[in-house]
């Protein structure tokens, strides 16, 4: 069974190629190509996952090319971690394909959209299956390409163009970090293979400084891809892409690749305390930072985007705090509920044709199903008890506490509160109250769209039971079979942690209810309390502006400087040489004054000089 796992990514690739060929087709039946082929991938993935569940593993490699005597290999590997990822990715991909059939209805580049989705799925699945860093890096970049293409799908919109460019460049910055880390590791280990790297790490062949350096470089890659601070700014802008894309790429799969990378390279991180701390701190700070921005956004998708950043921060925090399982667990649950939220948001947008929550309201009646599913998602992400988010978030908090990172722990709790607040702010503003925009033509989405949402809704509820203290820690047992040696010790912290978490969540929901539903508290109540802070938060901490003022302007400035240098110094030098020769020519032709006697004089002058030099150097006068 596992031998054929390399086929999984090829079906979406096939879909990509086929759809590019049928690019001009006006028939929306072309969507079925994509759906069908990713469906096959999904079936295979699930089959493989089940096999791995039984304890199977595989790793197959062949030589790709040689660098000297060293063979650079390509192949595939299936282990518990990536088998799980396979399922998540192919599932969400399949559902999004299905959903898009309805969502993209009427778009004139309908097949192209599905082609891009296929390309992305291919890259993402390939990434997951990679047995070595180089191959991972390649798919890593291709994933970025898919993301880029899909963000810029509405290429004629200037914002989409800008966002696509930004996404590519920002993640590229992270990629370079990954690149450096990978190459450095290669010269330490002599191979890109995970196994070889881990073996070297375990045998202590790499100095601790180098360990930290490479781990951090790789983490930079993860920061870029997962939208962590300080490279997070592209992710909210990426919402310019069609909403299914946001669900697939910018919520469930690609942005989680950073987390996956850290998890896949976990033994390396484990070997360096500093690296883990950096991961935890970046994750924690990102979690609360993004959550704070989410509080005041007006665009439904942007709120979700910041929420994604925040949740990814959670996962990083977990990994950094030795909560390997917690991180993966949250990755899984988050994939489901965030995809659900995005699809639901898409359904809303599909209905009202706006993304501004100020222009929505009171949609509960008209979009009953969507509203319900959105509510499930919101509850799950808020950590409402018994839904999936509750368990995974709880586990993160527990492992953070157990790891002794108390500051980060409380940060996470506050972030959880904020998450609950802004999610329900969103829910109330969109679904309750009075309609604020033109909602005359609003109707529920077709079943091809609601069906995937229902599946995700179910998963958002039940996925949490994969790993609970009550019913069994299936996931951690399962992951323990993988190459990563799980951290020892009890990362189920004290019993009061779930209570605190629940309290924070309920507090957030309650506050949102008071402000936006009951309107007992004025909406500007908070911003009046902290006018400066809220201004800053409203403007997203001025990060974009800061980057613009420093890096963007700096680069442009340097470039302009370079142009000036090129024009005046480089060309100037050439021009001065030319001018010198011209001057010489001028002098030469001036001597040629037409007077034959002066020619003779010049000649005699030259001759006398020669004779003088002979006399002087020969020592005639001495």
């Amino acid at each position, binding site marked *: 069974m596992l031998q054929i796992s390399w086929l999984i990514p090829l079906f979406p690739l096939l879909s990509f190629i086929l759809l590019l060929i049928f*690019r001009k087709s006006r028939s929306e039946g072309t969507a079925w190509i994509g759906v069908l082929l990713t469906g096959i991938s999904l079936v295979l993935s699930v089959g493989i996952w089940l096999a791995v569940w039984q304890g199977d593993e595989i790793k197959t490699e062949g*030589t*790709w*090319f*040689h*660098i*000297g005597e*060293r063979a650079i290999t390509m192949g595939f590997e299936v282990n518990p971690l990536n088998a799980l990822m396979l399922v998540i990715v192919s599932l969400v991909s399949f559902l999004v394909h299905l959903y898009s059939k309805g969502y993209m209805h009427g778009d004139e580049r309908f097949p192209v959209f599905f082609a891009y989705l296929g390309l992305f799925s291919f890259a993402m699945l390939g990434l997951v299956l990679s047995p070595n860093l*180089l191959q991972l*890096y*390649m*798919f890593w*970049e*291709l994933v970025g*390409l898919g993301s880029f293409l899909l963000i*810029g799908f509405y*290429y*004629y919109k*200037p914002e*989409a*163009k800008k966002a*696509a*460019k930004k996404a*590519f*460049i920002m993640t*590229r*910055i992270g*990629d*370079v970090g990954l*690149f*450096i880390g990978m*190459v*450095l590791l*290669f*010269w330490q280990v002599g191979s890109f293979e995970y196994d070889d790297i881990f073996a070297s790490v375990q045998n202590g062949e790499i100095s601790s400084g180098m360990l930290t350096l490479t781990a951090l470089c790789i983490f930079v890659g993860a920061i870029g891809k997962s939208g962590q601070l300080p490279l997070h700014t592209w992710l909210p802008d990426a919402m310019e892409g069609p909403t299914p894309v946001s669900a697939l790429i910018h919520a469930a799969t690609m942005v989680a690749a950073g987390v996956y990378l850290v998890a896949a390279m976990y033994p390396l991180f484990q070997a360096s305390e500093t690296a883990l701390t950096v991961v935890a701190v970046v994750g924690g700070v990102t979690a609360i930072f993004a959550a704070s921005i989410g509080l005041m956004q007006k665009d439904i998708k942007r709120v979700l985007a910041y929420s994604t950043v925040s949740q990814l921060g959670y996962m990083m925090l977990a990994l950094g705090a030795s909560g390997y399982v917690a991180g993966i667990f949250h990755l899984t649950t988050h994939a489901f509920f965030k995809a659900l939220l995005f699809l639901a948001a898409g359904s809303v947008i599909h209905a009202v044709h706006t993304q501004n929550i100020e222009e929505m309201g009171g949609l509960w009646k008209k979009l009953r199903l969507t509203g319900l599913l959105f509510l499930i998602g919101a509850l799950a992400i808020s950590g409402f008890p018994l839904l999936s988010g509750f368990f995974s978030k709880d586990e993160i908090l527990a492992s953070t506490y157990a790891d002794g990172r108390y500051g980060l722990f409380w940060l996470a709790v506050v972030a959880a509160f904020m998450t609950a607040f802004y999610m329900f702010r969103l829910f109330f503003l969109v679904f309750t109250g009075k309609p604020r925009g033109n909602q005359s033509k609003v109707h529920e989405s077709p079943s091809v769209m609601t069906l995937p949402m229902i599946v995700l809704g179910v998963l958002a509820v039940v996925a949490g039971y994969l790993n609970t203290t009550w019913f069994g820690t299936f996931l951690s047992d399962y992951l323990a079979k993988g190459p990563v040696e799980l951290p020892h010790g009890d990362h189920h912290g004290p019993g009061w942690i779930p209570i605190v978490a629940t309290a924070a969540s309920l507090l957030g929901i309650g506050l949102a209810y008071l402000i936006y539903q009951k309107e007992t508290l004025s909406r500007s109540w908070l911003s009046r309390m902290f006018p400066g802070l809220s201004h800053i938060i409203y403007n997203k901490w001025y990060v974009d502006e800061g980057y613009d003022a420093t890096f963007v302007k700096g*680069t*442009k400035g*340097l*470039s*302009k400087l*370079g*142009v000036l240098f*090129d024009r005046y*110094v*480089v*060309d100037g*030098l*050439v021009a001065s040489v030319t001018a010198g020769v011209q001057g010489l020519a001028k002098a030469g032709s001036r001597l040629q004054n037409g007077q034959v006697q002066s020619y003779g004089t010049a000649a005699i002058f030259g001759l006398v000089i020669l004779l003088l030099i002979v006399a002087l150097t020969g020592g005639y006068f001495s």
Partner: protein
Amino acid sequence: MNTWLLSILIFSPLLGVLVLIFTPSHDERSIKWIGILGTLFPLGTAIVTLSAFNMSGGGLQLTERFQWVSYEVFQSKGEVSYPILYEVGVNGLSMVLILLTAVVSVLAAIASFSIKQNWKSYFILFFLLEMGMLGVFAAQNLFLFFIFFEITLIPMFFLIGRWGYLEKEKAAYSFLIYNGVGSAILLIAFVAMFMKTGTMNFEQLAYTFALPQSELNQMLITKNFKMGMLIALLVAFAVKLPVAPLHSWMVRVHVQAPPPVVMIHSGILLKIGAYGLIVFGAGLFPDQFRSLAFIVGLFGVINLLYGAFLAITQTDVKRVLAYSSVSHMGIVLIGLAAVNEAGMTGAVFQVVSHGLISALLFFLVGVLYERAGSSELRTFGGVAKRMPIFAGVMLAGGLASLGLPGMSGFISEFMAFLGLFEEMPILAAVGTLGLILTAVYVLRAVLSITFGAEKELPNAYDLSPTERIPAFALLAAILFIGIYPAWLSDMLRPTLDAILLGLGG
């Protein structure tokens, strides 16, 4: 048969010249067909040569040699102690470049539909240029190399100066003088080496220079002499490559020359610089090269960053691509500076890869110019709407240029940097900044043409079937190398191994 194969290959473009001479100059259709067929013949011969070439065998193959010029130096009558021979042969490296030349020439010939006048003389010069390029890569001694090297200059001068754009003459002069400086230095170095060693043959020279210093002293070859020669060679080929600050001619040529010519120029002619650096720089003076490696690497990184920074704010897409070439040639230097297998392979891959990519991009720019009569970025916007295939290929080319995995650019960048990281990690780390900047300027240029709100173009129609041939062929080649690099690297390995053996790496 095989013994003459290489010479037939080198001079095969002359067949086209011969046919063209007897074609009436007003018969545009036949001339263009002869132009394309005339380049197909060398391509066919190159493929035959490739099949006769033993991939795994190292060393020179298909060699031919005979006495050519006999100045009887320091000898009594009848003996020639300093023979100048006609020597050609191929190894893995030159085979690859010959193939590249043949392929790009065909595609450039197809792309020459944009030439509006004087097709006959255009194609005659084009064939001569191709002959020069093939000869450069097949030559096995300095004299022959130099002759073919110069042969490429003259047709280029005409092609730029006659068929170029507004400031064509200035560009042609720039080209001529800068390259003249390069070849002048080259000639001095070549003759000096010849007079010291009595041979012009690459292998014999390498053998001689590798002798122990005590023996070399008898031939009056000091270490300083070797160092001097190496520096001269480096400078000469730095002009050709070009290395900043010697690049301004190249920018001018890229902007002013007609697109098919730029395809050739950027695709192959610049590569002669890289080829020279590998064969003469690293091949003949390994020890000295090694001691200069850091400086080479430094220049590589400077090139990479300088080109990239300047490309960011250019307003003309041709200039963007020109500076991008400067930047990408920095990667060649970076690979060479690594002086190890990975770096060297990377450098050669970059040579091939950039050859294909820049040919593709300049071809597309040519198409664009054909449609809009301009290459200013602000003229364009939203081209993807009416020219979707064009936009797709352009984007693919751009992505290849910024080193997207799965395309040839990635392999070369990866290997060059992999190599440098082993030797000079800090320098390499600074260099990786270039990877980001490349993404910045490539996307800026490509997206501002294809994406965004649509701007009116006089005749925006998508790639015609003829135009698709070069576009798709180049793209396919780029993808092929990107996905299956072993084909190239296996062919290169014996040659590079031999060079590296000298370098002691």
